[in-house]
């Protein structure tokens, strides 16, 4: 099943995909998909979720950015204020020169994961989603890079539209990815080209940090990131998981260079 979380008619709802144009709300009613506000498709959690994101996890993207592929996962952490739903707007700060999307497969943890072996890793994943892990490269600094000013901005990580149940994704390591900017294909790839695949990552992280249901792993992006101007409609799509839409809007004022 494909789960969504939406605002509609004054309340927040869990919903399921119902045909190409509708959603079934948790009370049984059907509503049009274009009548709702899409929220991140994640069930609420009782503690702040841990959001891990991979950098340079596709060999072609690492080359693109002139880095040799990492020997262990390059991982950074996001706060949940960075997440925003499908069809949302993300701010491009005034005056920046390079803001690019990153189309990424997201794994949602379903069970407490501690010291998990890679052969068992899929037992700990409950579902998948699509994220667009925007980066604003103007703010890159070589301290805990990629630093939070690049990667942890409000609403800078669209996610959705769906959370797809894991059994509905036959092989998450064989999925085509594609990004379109204003309808033009700018990024293509396949999850089979990850340097560190999901079973490896679950084993690696759970060896030192216990993951809880609702925690997220954003698995990195392939080659083909380009700067996107204000007004661009960016669609990041993963085969069988969803097509996530986002529009870039202008930030109000220059951010201080601190």
């Amino acid at each position, binding site marked *: 099943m494909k789960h969504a979380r939406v605002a509609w008619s004054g309340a927040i709802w869990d919903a399921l995909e119902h045909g190409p144009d509708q959603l079934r709300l948790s009370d049984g009613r059907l509503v049009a998909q274009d009548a709702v506000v899409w929220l991140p498709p994640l069930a609420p959690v009782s*503690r*702040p*979720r*841990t959001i*891990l994101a991979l950098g340079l996890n596709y060999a072609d993207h690492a080359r693109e950015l002139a880095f040799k592929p990492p020997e*262990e996962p*390059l*991982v*950074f*952490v*996001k*706060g*949940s*204020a*960075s997440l925003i739903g499908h069809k949302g707007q993300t701010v491009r700060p005034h005056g920046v020169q390079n803001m690019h999307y990153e189309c990424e497969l997201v794994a949602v943890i379903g069970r407490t994961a*501690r010291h998990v072996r890679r052969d068992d890793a899929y037992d700990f994943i409950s579902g998948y989603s699509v994220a667009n892990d925007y980066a604003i490269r103007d*703010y890159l*600094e*070589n*301290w*805990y*890079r*990629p*630093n*939070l*000013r690049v990667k*942890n*901005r*409000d609403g800078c990580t669209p996610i959705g539209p769906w959370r797809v149940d894991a059994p509905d994704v036959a092989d998450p390591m064989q999925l085509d990815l594609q990004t379109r900017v204003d309808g033009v294909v700018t990024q293509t790839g396949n999850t089979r080209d990850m340097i560190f695949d999901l079973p490896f990552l679950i084993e690696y992280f759970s060896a*030192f*940090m*216990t*993951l*809880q249901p609702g925690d997220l792993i954003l698995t990195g992006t392939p080659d083909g990131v380009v700067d996107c101007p204000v007004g661009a409609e960016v669609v990041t799509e993963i085969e069988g998981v969803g097509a996530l839409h986002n529009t870039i809007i202008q930030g109000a004022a220059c*951010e*201080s*260079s*601190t």
Partner: protein
Amino acid sequence: MNAPTGTFWPVGTVYGCLLNFRREWQHMGERMARAPHQAPPRAPVLYVKTANTWSASGAGIALPAGSDAVLVGASVAMVLGPRHWVSGADQTMPSVGAYVLVNDLELPGTTYFRPPVRSRCVDGFLGLGAHGVAPDQAADPAQFVLEVRINGDLRQTIRFDDLVRDAATLLRDVDGFMSLRAGDLLLLGCEADRPLARAGDHVEIAMAGRAAFGVLSNTLLAGPALEAA
């Protein structure tokens, strides 16, 4: 771990801050301008202490397999209160609801180039004081003085009067690029020369002259033996 009852426990994201003590900055010295850093940091350098790291005061903290020592990063966290509208302005600002002691542990030997997840996000690696102290009870953060004791011996005294960004400036600069929400924590940073502690050591962190903070106390435990390769 699960939230203990009757004591302070975060409800938001916990952000740590690197290089916010002038001595820590000075220790880096000319290395800041060399590879891989190339230049001193401009914006605050932050990291996240994920929820798996949180340990209540009094709890044991296990070292991971293969590690026999850990750096003790005593600090104070600002606990964010509700955002409020700035009079005459068109946006909100964060407020500080309380201050709380923290013991921000890190495995030694990690550089500052890549995010420190492997060294700082280990299960249990953030001791949390039992009580948040309201700003009107806590004094000016620039007057904070922490004492770090290991097995009863005073190992470090930390004065918060010589920060790169004082508490208000740090809050403003961080909030300038990511909104801090009620319940988030923002640490004021760790002084240079963090003491090392080992399995079996008892670490206590206290605010000099301010009993209201209580004593943050954690015992380090030996981790599991390394599995044979």
